[in-house]
């Protein structure tokens, strides 16, 4: 079972995506935890959250983006330039953060210079940075705009019913992820943080039905394992901060003698906690979830909500410390991490702040040393 998840996490495409396309299905890529995949699912498309894994050089990324920019969106552009995203029928870029939103311009421009790397359907999703009613209304407007755009381009008809069905499918995904989280909370971990991360990551890379199916099997496996008392206990850490889709980062941490038992990052469990209301008006419900529920520091002035969510997860997972990492040039997570560090340490939770580059994890010595020292510190 794990193979399936490990394979999926290893590279950007996976057998399910290829299979989906072979059977004439179309795939749509999206960038941020702000964009509801339910919309694409309801249109019969395969939602695929854009990943930067497997980037080895930056000649396209750096050609359009300037210096001083987060390497994650740069890697997305690099892969697009390399043609790796040729399988996309469409892409939606969100205004997650400045580095991310400029992917819209950079990708379009690169598309003019290198024909064929820009998906035919290319949409800019403009999300507010706060949640007051008038901002929520704007967000719902954006959802409707996206729905209309998808409908007219892909000739789909996204009815409220279909949306509600998709919401249910994804609610199940969210529920299963939470169950996995609970299993990780057991003090003898039944699954490594790396494997758990691979599994969770798959939820945005394969058809949700397939994911749910595999996840249920995995959970059964793990439950039986738990009965027979899982692996040996290690230092239990939580990982938070900047976006990451590279299982290698988890491996790195766990090689330093810790177990990652929970996370709050994009591609991890961030935002899996609450289900979407599947009875009321679906657009409003999605707005509630994806804007009001957004746990990214891009939501200005909502630090307390994020702090509480984090603190709660820390207790639930029984983590003994937390690694707060940010990708270089990510000011949002960077400074947020410092606030979190102060507040969490006040409550006696050891914190390690790390700044890193996103990209090939080849030279990890310095990072490892810090994590090892941190593990020693909390033991």
């Amino acid at each position: 079972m794990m193979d399936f998840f490990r394979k999926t996490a290893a590279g950007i495409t996976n057998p399910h995506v290829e299979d989906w396309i072979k059977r004439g299905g179309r795939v749509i890529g999206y960038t941020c935890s702000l964009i509801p995949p339910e919309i694409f699912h309801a249109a019969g498309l395969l939602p695929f959250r854009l990943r930067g894994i497997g980037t080895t050089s930056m000649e396209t990324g750096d050609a359009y983006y300037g210096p001083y920019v987060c390497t994650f969106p740069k890697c997305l552009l690099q892969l697009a330039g390399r043609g790796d995203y040729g399988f996309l029928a469409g892409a939606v870029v969100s205004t997650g953060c400045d580095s991310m939103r400029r992917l819209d311009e950079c990708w379009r421009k690169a598309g003019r210079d290198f024909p064929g790397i820009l998906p035919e359907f290319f949409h800019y999703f403009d999300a507010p940075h706060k949640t007051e009613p008038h901002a929520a209304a704007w967000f719902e407007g954006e959802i409707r705009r996206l729905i209309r755009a998808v409908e007219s381009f892909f000739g789909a008809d996204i009815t409220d019913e279909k949306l509600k069905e998709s919401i249910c499918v994804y609610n199940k995904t969210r529920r299963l992820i939470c169950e996995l989280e609970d299993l990780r909370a057991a003090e003898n971990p039944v699954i490594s943080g790396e494997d758990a991360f691979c599994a969770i990551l798959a939820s945005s890379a394969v058809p949700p039905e397939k994911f749910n199916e595999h996840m249920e099997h995995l959970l059964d496996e793990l439950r039986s394992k738990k009965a027979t008392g899982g692996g040996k206990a290690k230092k239990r850490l939580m990982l938070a901060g900047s976006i990451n889709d590279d299982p290698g980062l988890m491996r790195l941490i766990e090689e330093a003698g810790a177990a990652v038992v929970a996370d709050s990052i994009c591609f991890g469990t961030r935002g899996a906690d609450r289900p979407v209301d599947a009875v009321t008006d679906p657009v409003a419900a999605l707005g509630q979830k994806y804007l009001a529920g957004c746990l990214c520091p891009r939501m200005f002035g909502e630090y307390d909500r994020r702090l509480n969510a984090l603190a709660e997860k820390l207790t639930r997972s029984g983590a003994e410390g937390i690694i707060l990492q940010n990708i270089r040039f990510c000011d949002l997570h960077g400074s947020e991490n410092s606030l979190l560090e102060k507040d969490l340490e006040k409550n006696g939770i050891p914190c390690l702040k790390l700044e890193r580059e996103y990209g090939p994890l080849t030279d990890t010595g310095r990072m490892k040393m810090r994590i090892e020292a941190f593990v020693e510190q909390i033991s």
Partner: protein
Amino acid sequence: MSIAAGCDVGSLTSKAVIMENGRIKSVSVMRSGTRPQVSAESVMNDALGRAGLSMRDISFCVATGYGRKNIPFADKSVSEIACHGRGARWLVPSARTVIDIGGQDCKALRLDKKGEIAKFTANDKCASGTGRFLEVMARLLQVSMEELGGMSARAAAPVTMASTCTVWAQSDVVRYINSGCRLSDIGAGINTAMAKRAAILANSVGVENDICMTGGVAKNQGVVKELEKLLGARIKRSKKADPQAAGAIGAALFAAAHIKAGE
């Protein structure tokens, strides 16, 4: 009698310390080669030689530093952060803040009353603010590390450096040299830039007296004095041993503790 050893294989230098019930028998500092094992062997043999001992006499050896994982004769490995904390505490028993500037990075540690590590942070995004930075600059200026350290004292008008990154600084230095600046003024500027980075790091973990500096750069008086200015506090020097060996001393102390626990 039980003899403890500590071996710190750093990116630039390797250090070994032999200790017998809390007293240093010998210290050795050498340039690291490309292969950690080899560096470890030779520095340890040198230290043993000085102490008139052989590997067999060592009851327990702790390794630290970047190369610590592949050291054949080590019984245990401990991170250099822990080792520098312990070593600094031995050098300056009242130390509550440790600033360690080695070849690869710059670390700031805050210790609690018992000397346990309460908080640490390290700068390694960029080579500026590392001993390596000083070496590169020293090479550009064609002076030795010692001379570079002395330059601050002799400087008339220290230059300001684009402190953000080694390479930017490099072209700055080249420009200064070409425009005929006095070398000592450039050197002083370099030391100051280094100290500024370290000061930011130290302040971000929160400086508490007393302050102790470890790592090779602790031997750079220019940096130390500048750092004192920036922190507005004196940095306690220790006559007990070479601060560059602090990591190895800490490792040896861990080894000794292990032996004690065993007895």
